[in-house]
């Protein structure tokens, strides 16, 4: 199994997101006052300044906004991945998250901006929190 860096706690902004990942749920926040979507997770609504944010579950589908295939990373946690794709994914609910695009034969050729992708949760040797990654639909 992959051995990526785990999220580290205590970190109260992101902990609910990662507890959701353990359950196989991709979570984001939405403001109960103004309906604005907030991501990365935090305490305050970045649209209206309010504090009444609710956790919502994403359907887990979106498009590749942009990506890069990493050929060199000095961090040994990623050394067994070979060339791997880092991407920003625009989820259909309106939030953009950093992730990886996986499950393609050659990431330098088989990934494209605008490609439709779906989340999956990749179990880790490094700890209990699976990492949400995306595979082309």
């Amino acid at each position, binding site marked *: 199994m992959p051995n990526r860096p785990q999220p580290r706690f205590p970190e109260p*902004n992101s902990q609910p997101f990662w507890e959701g990942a353990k359950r196989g749920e991709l979570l984001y926040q939405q403001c109960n006052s103004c309906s604005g979507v907030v991501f990365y997770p*935090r305490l305050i609504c970045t649209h209206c300044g309010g504090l009444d944010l609710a956790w919502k579950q994403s359907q887990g589908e979106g498009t590749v906004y*942009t990506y*890069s295939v*990493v050929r060199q*990373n000095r961090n040994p946690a990623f050394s067994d991945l070979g060339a791997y794709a880092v991407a920003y994914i625009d989820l259909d609910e309106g939030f953009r998250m*950093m992730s990886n695009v996986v499950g393609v034969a050659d990431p330098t050729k088989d990934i494209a901006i605008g490609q439709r992708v779906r989340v999956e949760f990749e179990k880790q040797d490094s700890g209990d929190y699976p990492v949400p990654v995306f595979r082309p639909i």
Partner: protein
Amino acid sequence: MANQARDAAIVGIHEYPLRVAPGRSAMQIKAESISKALEDSGLKLTDVDAIYDTNEGEGGGGLGMAHYLNLKPTVIDTTQVGGSSYEFQTAHALRDIRAGKANVAILSYGSVAASNRTPIGTGGGTGMGAPNWQGNMEDPFGQTLIANYAMVAHRHMHQYGTRAEDLAEISVSTRLHATRNPEAVRAMQDLQFMATGEITVQDVLDSRVIADPLHLLECCMVSDGGGALVIASAAAARGAKKKPVWIIGTGEATKYRENGGDITVSAGAQSAPIAFGEAQVRPEELDLAMIYDSFTITVATILEDLGFCKKGDYKDFAKNNRFRFDSALKPALNTDGGGLSSNHPGMRGLFLLLESVRQLRGESTSQVANAQLAIAHGNGGFLGGNHTGGSIILARD
């Protein structure tokens, strides 16, 4: 230009000459550079009443710098916003001098990133340090710093049809300038570049890919280095040895990964109009653009954001060897050899100001004929993530 305020000027500069400085500490590089920048200005250490510091190395910020120099300044500013910290600090120095709070200000930088083997570009996502809200959302995905900038490049190519060979023009002209700068040549030798001469677009495309679509020759070096500059009020500048280089416009801005945002637009799109408005000049009037060249895409994006051409038009703007120091087209770009081929110890913003001053004094190794106006634009942080943009417009008398 009649209404330009000329309240503060850069009157002293020093660029630490070595890019590999074993046995030196960052603090020593800062102190040596301050001493020599003061010597260049003709002002004395005891004239200094304002310290601006980035809290890099083992320095201890503005307090630590004041202690090291045994000064008791009336203004201390420890603004640390990454590589553009020095543009932000220059803006603050102008503000503080205008307000009458300071008369002679120093900014300094020191780093031994090369000697420490710091993997600035290829060490991202370490999962180290204190837990924080952003790291927890990024560290598991293995984004190196280069990959973040590369994501901007991919999107720029997708939206505007920019090609790798268009971006490579920046590497080519910057290397030409480096070959004319003896300190840059020595830097490339000391850092064991495979070749230190001029390069072609094809050389860039043939170099290995570090993070798609960015090639090795589109990435800055990791060096030791540093420098300092002295900023003086109009009254204090009259006592300086060399002609003042006036700070006529400043702008500061931030940008983030945003839901639905456009990653091809940097913080410069916000900072530049403020700076140009204050300076009352237009981009096409500038002789020199010193733009933070962490990677080629950084420069391409920022040239557009500063208004040298429309967003997406970089690929056409870059034609006809525009960026060379001896081109009839403006602006000349990164005439010291840049972070790509002369000096990048981690926060390059100071060097943008130093070369701008050399050009406006007529002291550059790739001197632009009759250079009168320059912009130094620093980018700090991650171009495709959270970052700062600091724009400083400079003019000679």
